[in-house]
């Protein structure tokens, strides 16, 4: 693995994959959260889009990726959107559950004291949703990792997925494992250096 890192293109491939992961993750979290919160708050919207969400939730990743590539071409934005599309519905579902359990009494308080729309979102609604947000983010990163590799394998000429496919054709188990290990290290680093401090900060008000 060290050899690959120093002499091969592991770092380059890992970097490009990470960028894709970051792009798809951000897209899926932001759009998915917005949709989920909207569905949780407005019941009518929920009734209208519930079945669509179920369809999207159960669409096989392979199908959505291929359709996206066929419809929009083998390019970078398509790859990222295809990945995001696979995470988006589950983020929306998680955040919708959160938005359904919002504390009505605090919303009433905000209304009595005439807090503005954005102030309510920022100070009353979003803080209540942080546990759901973290749950969605953790599972989301895991799923997106996996799907980015598939997307790379199918339609990109760089990145970890592409590299693994090449090693697969050579039956080069050592290098596949090296890539996998590199992967695991990065994920652990994100858990320890990213989520945990962030979660600690978000929960600072708890007893």
């Amino acid at each position, binding site marked *: 693995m060290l050899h690959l890192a120093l002499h091969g293109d592991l770092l380059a491939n890992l970097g490009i994959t990470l960028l894709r992961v970051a792009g798809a993750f951000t897209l899926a979290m932001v759009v998915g959260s917005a949709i989920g919160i909207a569905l949780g708050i407005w019941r009518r919207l929920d009734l209208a889009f519930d079945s669509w969400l179920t369809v999207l939730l159960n669409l096989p990743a392979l199908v959505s990726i291929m359709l996206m590539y066929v419809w929009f071409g083998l390019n970078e934005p398509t790859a990222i959107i295809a990945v995001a599309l696979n995470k988006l519905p589950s983020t929306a579902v998680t955040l919708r559950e959160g938005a359904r359990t919002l504390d009505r009494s*605090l919303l009433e*308080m905000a*209304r009595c004291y*005439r*807090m503005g729309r954005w102030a309510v979102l920022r100070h009353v609604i979003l803080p209540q949703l942080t546990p759901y947000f973290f749950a969605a983010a953790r599972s989301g990163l895991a799923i997106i990792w996996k799907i980015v590799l598939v997307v790379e394998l199918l339609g990109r000429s760089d990145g970890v997925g592409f590299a693994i496919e090449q090693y697969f054709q050579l039956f080069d188990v050592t290098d596949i494992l090296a890539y996998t290990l590199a992967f695991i290290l990065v994920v652990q680093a994100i858990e320890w250096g990213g989520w945990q401090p962030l979660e600690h900060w978000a929960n600072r*008000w708890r*007893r």
Partner: protein
Amino acid sequence: MGRVAAFGTLGQSVAAVILEVLIRRKTFPGAREPVLADLAFALGAHEIVAVVGPSGCGKTTLLRLISGLDQTFEGEITWTQSGPRQSGPAPAGVAPPRLGMVFQEPRLLPWRTVWQNLALVLPPGQDAAAAALLKRLGLWAERDSYPSRISLGMARRVAIARAFAIAPALVLLDEPFASLDAGNADLGRAVLLEAWEARPTAALLVTHDLTDAAALADRVLMLAGRPARIIADIPIAANERRGDRATVAQLAARLRDIQERSVISGF
């Protein structure tokens, strides 16, 4: 305004009417009988009015109507200083005045500090006065604490401070001392008076506890029946208002008498 005759008498100390409440009927969806009917009264600036009545008689509903949290009723709630508000949504251009609200529970945002909880609802230019109020209520040292780190009694005090800090035209209080034992309720009432003296406003206090009414009110409205109506409107004489412990106890006993007599004769 010919309607004025329909309103109850005002306490002697009242300078100007700020609010006229006329509720012809309030019925909850699906209910056969209305909760409130033919209920009318007016509220003066700087007046503390206690609305007393048995639990479940519709006192909280009355507060929700006045606060605008519930807008489905027949009648009119008229803010005489900033224009009228009919039942249903407020007409364009007429803003009801600022209201402070003290709920049965503190209802502070747990993820914001004591000071942030106030600052989030303060109108511009009220920061210094709010800080002064926190100091006066003994909360200044806890301004950077989260609500989960202070005692429940203190959180209640913060909720009272918040209601008065926004320089409201009216503070609505919904059984603010209901879940406290006698000693802490005394303390709560003292804090409320302290806040009211620091920032004099009209206050409407809903309570089932006649001691609350006797200790705080300029005027007591008694509600009873189904649908609830005002069965008595009792101005408190100046020498009995917000008196010492013995005065309060005596007054509370007298109010209890009136309540029992009215209930027996009227229902």
